[in-house]
């Protein structure tokens, strides 16, 4: 045990003296997530708020033939801008979010009581245009509905004749679950923090030691190699755990910087959330430390290890990216898959649903099983003759 502690304390002490490792473990890693999160959220919130409140102006072709419709639009804060030639191109080239085209036969058809066409020209692949499009569409549709009802009443019919089915929205989303939808990328930040927190240490303790030719003298000591590895892994885990704790603490302050109340969502990133996140992430800390050491041990130099690890860094993104593109219903087995389980668990915590004991158990069991495998693999590699030879 004394060899283990000797290695552990030496690595911790040596790396506390390295500015690059410290900056990564204590500043970049933990703060990158919260800062990006706060900035993104503020930009998003402000854009959404600006669009729904502020009057917008929409080019209208044939405004003169439908003065009543234009007046209705104006009443809803949509000003008719002068018509523009070739509206399809204007939308494609992003000169306008949406263009309204009223057919020239509008006035004639209207007076005959026939249906008339109003075209909305927009590009549904442009997400930033979706708010103005939805506003214009809802104003035009409700105007049409209102006028239709008036016509029915004029003919002595009840408006319900035309709309036998009424849709009433009963949205079950809580303000917390709505926020979870927006924050589904949050788990990735925690994984990234753990990754960055331990990365430079993992490189330094294997590839770095090889490059500096200090691994051979170290292995000459009468200590089994697995004990040396255990001390090194413990040091890496310590740094990534500290990183994670700092990150969770920084996230806890995030609601102070985001105008959550304007969005009508609740954001609870407090102590309960934080402690559960740390618990869920524990197996990942060990798993990533072992994987990073394993990959670094293959590299001949510090730089080579850095290259390999930046490729490895892509892997933890996959579950988060996958889940946001293809939203799947969580099946029980998914909780046992490392990374995926953590992802699901943290999103559930954000939704305020909590993580039941069996899910937590699966998450920890699956994660630690993978971690044990990774540690075992690294230990096997550590036994190889080739590892110690620097030349």
């Amino acid at each position, binding site marked *: 045990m*004394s*060899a283990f502690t*000797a*290695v552990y304390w*030496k690595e911790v*002490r*040596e*790396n506390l*003296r*390295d500015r690059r490792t410290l900056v990564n473990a204590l500043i970049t890693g933990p703060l990158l997530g919260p800062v990006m999160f706060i900035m993104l959220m503020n930009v998003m919130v402000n854009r959404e708020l600006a669009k729904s409140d502020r009057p917008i102006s929409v080019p209208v072709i044939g405004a003169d033939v439908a003065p009543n419709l234009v007046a209705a639009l104006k009443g809803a804060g949509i000003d008719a801008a002068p018509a523009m030639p070739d509206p399809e191109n204007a939308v494609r080239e992003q000169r306008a979010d949406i263009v309204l085209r009223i057919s020239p036969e509008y006035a004639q058809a209207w007076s005959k009581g026939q249906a008339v066409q109003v075209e909305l020209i927009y590009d549904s692949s442009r997400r930033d245009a979706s708010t103005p499009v939805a506003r214009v569409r809802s104003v035009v549709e409700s105007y049409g509905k209102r006028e239709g009802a008036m016509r029915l009443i004029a003919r002595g019919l009840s408006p319900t004749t035309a709309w036998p089915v009424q849709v009433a929205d009963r949205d079950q989303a809580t303000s917390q679950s709505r926020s979870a939808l927006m924050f589904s990328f949050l788990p990735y930040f925690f994984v990234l923090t753990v990754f960055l927190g331990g990365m430079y240490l993992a490189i330094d303790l294997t590839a770095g*030691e090889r490059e*500096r*030719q*200090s*691994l*051979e*003298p*170290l*292995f*000459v*000591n*009468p*200590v*089994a190699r697995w004990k040396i590895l255990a001390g090194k892994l413990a040091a890496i885990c310590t740094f990534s755990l500290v990183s994670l704790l700092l990150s969770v603490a920084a996230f806890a302050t995030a609601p102070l910087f985001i105008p959550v109340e304007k969005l009508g969502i609740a954001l609870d990133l407090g102590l309960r959330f934080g402690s559960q996140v740390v618990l869920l992430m524990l197996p990942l800390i060990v798993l990533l430390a072992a994987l990073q050491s394993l990959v670094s041990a293959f590299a001949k130099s510090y730089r080579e290890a850095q290259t390999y690890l930046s490729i490895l860094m892509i892997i933890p993104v996959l579950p988060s990216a996958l889940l946001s593109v293809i939203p799947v219903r969580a099946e029980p087995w998914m909780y046992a898959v490392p990374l995926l389980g953590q992802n699901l668990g943290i999103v559930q915590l954000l939704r305020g649903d909590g993580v039941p004991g069996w899910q937590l158990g699966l998450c920890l069991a699956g994660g630690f099983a993978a971690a044990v495998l990774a540690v075992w693999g690294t230990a096997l590699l550590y036994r190889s*003759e080739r590892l*110690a*030879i*620097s*030349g």
Partner: protein
Amino acid sequence: MIEVKDLHKAFGAVRAVNGVSFTARDGEITGLLGPNGAGKTTTLRMLYTLMTPDSGQVLVDGVDAAVDPLAVRRQLGVLPDARGLYKRLTATENIDYFGRLHDMEPGLLRQRREALIDALEMRDIATRRTEGFSQGQRVKTAIARALVHDPRNVLLDEPTNGLDVMATRAMRRFMRQLKDEGRCVLFSSHIMQEVAALCDRIVVIAHGRVVADEAPSALLAQTGETSLEDAFVKIIGTDEGLAA
């Protein structure tokens, strides 16, 4: 005492060590002389159990390295070919780290460390971080950490490599001191003068084999030459890779 019996080691098709046997006795300095690439470093690496021989046996104070490598390493002090120090630690911290890995009791560790710092004349650099150390300062620190556990057997891989004249002389003095303390000192070198000046026994290695294992005077007699340099060249068959 170190006994080496018929060691073989191949890397792919290259037979780096091809039947090396010799004995290094306590209270003697044994020199492993050979041109670059002769298999000296590989032989030493098998001695300190970093590499496993394909065949053959290594005994250190009677303990078989294949049976109990940890016990063998406990009885060895090794200055490997790789001298890497931890540059963010001071010389003292570097030495202490290895002492702790040997599970030394703190009081004894401090006492041994201070004695070595004096013997190696490195008091002035003891509390400095090793980053920016000269080659000589690095070798001194590496030797101090290798010997902190007071081993009976000392293996030094090209100990004077890269040292200037003053440092080389100090190193030779230190090796004689180790011998006078009754230790078994085995070192490798490709420098003939050094081996001639220090050794009680010379093991000449070429192409992975032992080509001579004699006292310096016996080598002269055997080859019929008057200078050691001529004797070495005659034994090895070429002067390639040797330095005078």
